[in-house]
């Protein structure tokens, strides 16, 4: 029996999303049963990596089949969900989803900053947004989308904030790697040298040529216009 189909059947009838380690435990439990046959016993020590690989294959198959539902991994746990385009009927079926109101623009901006640059202190977030974030942080903390994860080792030991599993679930993300344009917005990796000009012109790590002031007297043409 193929591993992926066993997993499919488990996720089909699971009452909550299951993580690879939970699935692995199920294999061990099934093999421990008195009436377990050799197939079941043979899968006793199924590795998590194999489970993940099988799940990914299964998800691809479902995607290729273009069914009304798909297999997704949200915050590390797998489950079957419907495709968004069927929402109108599903809403009619289950009634309005008990879902909190959508986040406001400031809250989304603050959340984005924390998500891409975590862990962050409140002051660092405010530096990027240019405004106080007290109110929006309160909202995000209350909704459990961010949490305090420790304290920065700087003067005053300010609290550091990170996003939570609930954040991934709220947006239907597999992991933080799954964030849109994650590599671009994430902090630049440490191994990159502090070069005066970055390879990526979109990243603001050095001044564009017209703004350089090293050679006094070489006034930028831009400013001279005024």
């Amino acid at each position, binding site marked *: 029996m193929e591993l992926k189909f066993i997993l499919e059947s488990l996720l089909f009838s699971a009452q909550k999303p299951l993580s690879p380690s939970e699935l692995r435990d199920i294999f061990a439990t099934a093999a421990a049963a008195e009436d377990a046959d050799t197939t079941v016993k043979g899968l006793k020590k199924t590795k998590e990596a194999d489970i993940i690989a099988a799940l990914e294959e299964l998800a691809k198959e479902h995607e290729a089949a273009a069914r009304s539902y798909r297999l997704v991994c949200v915050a590390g746990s797998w489950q079957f969900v419907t495709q*968004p385009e069927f929402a109108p009927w599903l809403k009619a079926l289950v009634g309005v989803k008990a879902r909190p109101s959508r986040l406001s623009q400031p809250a989304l901006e603050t959340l984005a900053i924390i998500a891409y640059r975590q862990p962050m202190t409140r002051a660092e977030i405010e530096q990027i947004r240019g405004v106080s974030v007290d109110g929006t942080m309160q909202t995000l903390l209350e909704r459990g989308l961010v949490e305090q994860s420790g304290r920065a080792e700087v003067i005053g030991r300010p609290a550091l904030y990170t996003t939570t599993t609930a954040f991934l679930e709220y947006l239907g993300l597999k992991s933080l790697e799954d964030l849109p344009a994650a590599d671009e917005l994430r902090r630049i990796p440490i191994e990159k040298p502090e070069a005066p000009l970055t390879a990526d012109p979109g990243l603001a790590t050095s001044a*564009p040529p017209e703004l350089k002031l090293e050679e006094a007297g070489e006034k930028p043409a831009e400013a001279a216009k005024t």
Partner: protein
Amino acid sequence: MSEYQVKFEVFEGPLDLLLYLIKKEEVDIYSVNLTKLASQFIEYIEMMREFDLEIAGEFLVMASTLMYIKSRELLPVEQQAQVEDEEAGEDPRWELIRQLVEYKKFKDAAAQLQTLEARQEGVFPRLPIKPQFEEDKATKQDISVFDLLNAVNAVLKRFEKRDNPREIFEDKWTVSEKIEMIVRVMEKGVVVRFSELFEDAMSRSEVVCTFLALLELIRLKQLVCGQSSDFGEIEIRKRDAVVPMSATPEPPANPTEPVAPAPAENPTS
């Protein structure tokens, strides 16, 4: 000036307003004319004042930064005051543009998160109801408190021999700590054997604490006990899949308020 056509938008902050002004000019952030931007920004603040809007302090800080940049531009380069240890990176114009670019990126990212948020609203998970027969048949539900006492006595036998005269230590364990411990253990597995809870116990008092914690959780209807065979080991399982649990053993008036619907389908009731 087309003052009467102004569509007044509420800006999140000075950076938001600056981005809006740049967008209106249809220029790239890097090639924006900062002096012109400074004038527009201050015009806007003036307008806010006319509308009797409260102007946040951040706007005024930004206005002064822009005024500083603008005033510098008015002087020929050789007469510009050299700010102490000013380097390319410390140029106020560059600093502002860097900030704008960074803010713009996160603003765009926020828009993408919003798309995800909206998409996720239309996604419905499959949530089957737990098959009824599973618990009814597999486990005998009516474990009495005496069954539990017998089980804990068996565990306590482990410590009987060590009851020689010895030093008395203060009790390191509290029931509420043990409640937290049990909740943690239950998070990992669906079913936990009774003896597993006491595997790490070092002393009688610890066993007693754990046992009291278990009783408390059963009383609060967080956990249920069962036996899969006669005289078999007692198994503990969670009553509901999702139970928000406070660590305090204080008995609330109505301890089970599961968010999940249909608490009535519990097999014990």
